[in-house]
């Protein structure tokens, strides 16, 4: 069984403990309600006709045969939407970003395979599919732009003729004297790293259902989304339906990983169709559709130069990054690579930085937030180049890191990009990881293995990331705050209504832990509700590892307010000074005489019967808070990966994986481990197997789960997880957030390990994914291998 260490002591009756909610086994017994499980009578089913070409003019669109098919209710094309809803604008933009029109349905031009052209409404999904076959489209294919390096060459065909080139936008960051740093360096280490395009791949693809109640003028939209409130605001604007007549529900959501942090064309169209038709409409995306038309992640090329002294001190970092953003910027498309820029110096004290980012249009689906969103790319580029520097200087990778780490006494630390790192203990964390992995022994083992001709490698990755999005000053989507209402019901049971929208991260449990501890009620007495804009307070959503740090703090704040009110009520009931009241074991008691006490239940009853309240106090026990953080949080950690590469086949075997993460205070170690491990799996997936490939014609080659190598249970290792705990100062809980850490730490750890294994062949770098064939070929090409 996996060794799970737990070195940190819990700090509350429930907070800090390894517990799961017992009263909520819905998802285990098949009683969850994902969008597709919600049946409304008389539903019309929607299917989309999607472009088969990556770049083409549509010269003819004939729906007549499809329209005539029995069971087809209606077919909607781009022309039908003219003047109704035409353009979905993105949110994250760069000052010079070229923002093309982003139509809900393409009219005369398509720019990527999978772009929606028409929507069929039919009595059942089978008929809708049949109808798609009967729609006749004629295309006039245009030259296709696939590779970003070629796309920015002069004379390349254009994705958008209205922009002068395929450069969509740029972003520059300069800090410190970079030229001097490079002049003073003993060595300049350079690398070109491809961070390939991958798919977020939630198990449940996208799903939308909409219903319009004309009598009540009420539009209800169920969507598998991470951001019910932001979606509501967007739909309200785009469809001109007032927000208070629009209800968005994110029911159970089958994973998202950033893929559902968006406002999609389909999400805009479905409610419109429901209003037009006066019937509920439903669209359940197929996996093939999902791989074409849900956002992708990563897809950067980083040209990196690191200036170092001969004793391994880092003086300056230069990076030129190309980011393939596809054809139409989605919600945060342009914002994501800027996170790479601002986090590029990682855990190190590098005095000078020059980062030049170019977003490039191609004839592909957009990239956008995929778990980690810009930070995995930052960590990958810095952790790879640091390893290359170590190899060149013949220095141990742990040593070079240790020499350049920010020291714990240097926090808060203003980075070259202007961020203020809250707190950190990088060296301690790395040392603990190395200890747990048995680093010195591993190096000895490696030496023996090499003598025997075996290819063993040890890879480190030390990361820092940016979480708890985010302070309002940084313009995060939705304003960066989160909300919670905490209510003690007349019976004494507690309801938490959260504006965040968790979908598997476990906040039903962590929020209940926070509330139960603050209110001194049994954990099982707390119910957490989220995801329905009609019942929860205005919220922002789930992304950027913000649920516990920002949303959890809102729960904490509301619980504090209730506590104060309960103390006042109790004091009135007991006829003592509120200052002398303590809340302990479910009762409010006099500090001086614990026998003088009332239970939380009695106080709740008093709050609602309203007879014995302090003068002037409003009845009820319900409080709402909005927490707007002043700063981000910066979790960090060290991952150690040990591999053996099979010389004959190129296969990479993971022998050991150690993750030492520091996400500040932990509310629930078990859900934290769940997040870390799931993240590691995705990070290793990218490093070893996964890749979205478009061919020269812009056709998606890896368009189904048959071709896209998502890792299975036998292909992933056991993870040995432990933590250090350095609280943040950015919120009262001290929590930093952990949703993306695993994905960020894992990818470079694995690649560093494989490159380390191949060092005897003089191999300095290998681009992901490290599939056996590629590894084998790389070895074969080296003269040392013969």
């Amino acid at each position, binding site marked *: 069984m996996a060794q799970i260490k737990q070195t940190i002591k819990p700090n509350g009756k429930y907070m800090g403990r390894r517990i799961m909610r017992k009263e909520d086994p819905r998802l285990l017994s098949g009683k969850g309600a994902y969008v597709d499980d919600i049946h409304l009578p008389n539903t019309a089913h929607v299917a989309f006709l999607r472009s088969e070409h990556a770049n083409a003019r549509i010269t003819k669109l004939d729906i007549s045969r499809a329209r005539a098919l029995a069971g087809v209710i209606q077919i909607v094309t781009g022309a039908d939407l003219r003047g109704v809803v035409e353009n979905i604008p993105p949110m994250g933009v760069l000052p010079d970003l070229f923002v093309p029109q982003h139509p809900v349905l393409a009219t005369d031009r398509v720019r990527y395979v999978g772009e929606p052209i028409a929507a069929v409404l039919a009595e059942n999904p089978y008929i809708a599919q049949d109808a798609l076959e009967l729609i006749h489209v004629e295309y006039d294919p245009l030259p296709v732009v696939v590779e970003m390096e070629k796309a920015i060459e002069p004379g390349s065909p254009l994705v958008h003729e209205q922009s002068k080139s395929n450069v969509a936008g740029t972003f520059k960051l300069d800090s410190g004297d970079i030229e001097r740093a490079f002049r003073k360096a003993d060595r300049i280490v350079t690398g070109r790293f491809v961070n390939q395009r991958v798919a977020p791949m939630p198990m449940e693809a996208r799903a939308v259902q909409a219903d319009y109640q004309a009598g009540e003028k009420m539009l209800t939209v169920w969507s598998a989304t991470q951001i019910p409130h932001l979606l509501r605001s967007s739909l309200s604007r785009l469809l001109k339906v007032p927000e208070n007549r629009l209800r968005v529900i994110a029911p159970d959501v089958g994973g998202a990983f950033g893929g559902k942090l968006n406002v999609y064309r389909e999400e805009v169209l479905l409610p419109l169709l429901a209003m037009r038709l006066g019937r509920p409409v439903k669209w359940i995306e197929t996996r093939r559709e999902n791989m074409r038309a849900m956002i992708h992640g990563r897809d950067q090329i980083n040209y990196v130069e690191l200036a170092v002294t001969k004793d391994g001190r880092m003086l300056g970092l230069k990076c030129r990054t190309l980011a393939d953003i596809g054809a139409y910027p989605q919600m945060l498309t342009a914002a994501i690579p800027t996170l790479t820029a601002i986090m590029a110096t990682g855990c190190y004290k590098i005095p000078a930085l020059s980062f030049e980012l170019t977003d490039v249009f191609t004839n592909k689906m957009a990239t956008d937030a995929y778990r980690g969103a810009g930070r995995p790319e930052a960590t990958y580029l810095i952790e790879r180049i640091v390893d290359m520097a170590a190899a060149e200087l013949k220095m141990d990778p742990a040593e070079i890191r240790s020499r350049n780490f920010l020291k714990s006494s240097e926090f808060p630390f203003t980075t070259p990009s202007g961020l203020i790192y809250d707190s950190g203990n990088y060296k301690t964390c790395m040392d603990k990881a190395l200890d747990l992995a048995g680093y010195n022994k591993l190096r000895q083992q490696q030496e023996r293995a090499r003598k025997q001709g075996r290819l063993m490698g040890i890879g480190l990755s030390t990361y820092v990331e940016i979480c708890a999005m985010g302070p309002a000053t940084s313009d995060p989507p939705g304003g960066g705050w989160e909300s919670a209402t905490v209510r003690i019901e007349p019976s004494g049971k507690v309801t938490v209504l959260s504006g965040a929208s968790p979908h598997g991260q476990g906040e039903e449990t962590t929020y209940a832990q926070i509330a139960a501890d603050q209110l001194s009620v049994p954990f099982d007495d707390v119910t957490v509700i989220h995801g329905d804009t009609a019942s929860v307070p205005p919220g922002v959503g789930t992304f950027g590892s913000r649920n516990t740090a920002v949303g959890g703090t809102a729960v904490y704040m509301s619980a504090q307010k209730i506590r104060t009110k309960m103390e006042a009520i109790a004091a009135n009931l007991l006829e003592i000074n509120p200052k002398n009241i303590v809340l302990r074991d479910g009762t409010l008691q006099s500090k001086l005489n614990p026998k003088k006490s009332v239970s939380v239940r009695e106080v709740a009853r008093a709050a609602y019967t309203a007879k014995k309240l302090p003068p002037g106090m409003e009845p009820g026990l319900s409080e709402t808070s909005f927490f707007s953080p002043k700063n981000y949080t910066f979790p960090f950690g060290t991952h150690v990966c040990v591999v053996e590469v099979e010389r004959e086949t190129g296969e990479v075997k993971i022998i050991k994986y150690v993750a030492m993460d520091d996400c500040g205070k932990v509310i629930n170690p078990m859900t934290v481990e769940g997040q870390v491990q799931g993240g590691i799996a995705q990070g290793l997936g990218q490093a070893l197997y996964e890749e979205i490939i478009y061919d020269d014609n812009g056709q998606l080659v890896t368009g189904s789960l048959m071709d896209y190598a998502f890792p299975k249970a036998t292909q*992933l290792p056991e993870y040995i997880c432990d933590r250090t705990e350095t609280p943040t100062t950015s919120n009262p809980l001290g929590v930093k957030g952990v949703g993306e850490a695993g994905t960020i730490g894992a990818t470079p750890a694995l690649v560093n390990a494989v490159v380390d294994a191949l060092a005897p062949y003089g191999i300095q770098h290998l681009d992901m994914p490290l599939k056996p064939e590629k590894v084998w070929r790389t070895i074969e090409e080296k003269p040392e291998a013969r």
Partner: protein
Amino acid sequence: MQVKVKINGKEYQDDVEPRMLLVHFIREKARLTGTHIGCDTGNCGACTVLFNGRTIKSCLMLAVQANGAEIMTIEGLSTNGLHPIQDAFLEKFGFQCGYCTSGMILSAYVLLQSNPQPTDHEIREALEGNLCMCTGYQQIVESISYAATKMKEAGK
């Protein structure tokens, strides 16, 4: 075409199109929505059900092919309370979003019938046909292993 299938001990009969997939029959006709759909190529295992006692992917079979068969879905695993495997998934956090969970639990159920004390490796092998995008599998493996121990202790 007429199809008669016993699902979780209850008979369901309906007139269906010959091309209707079994998974759609289960979800739409029997309205048992605990069986999920995660792909269109038979790769993900979210639609796993028991077909005459063996696990199958219900998206790879037509409803008419199941005529006369006995099917068990997640809803049929336990009639009162949670089955020890479900309990173990809850206690060991063997699920996050829950979308793969029905399939995982049914695969585990069949594994533990034939191999009540599987090693971690055997558990991973038994999950070959079930993908999970959330957990990285470890907590699933731990849940199943824990369930095996619990079931042995309880003499089930």
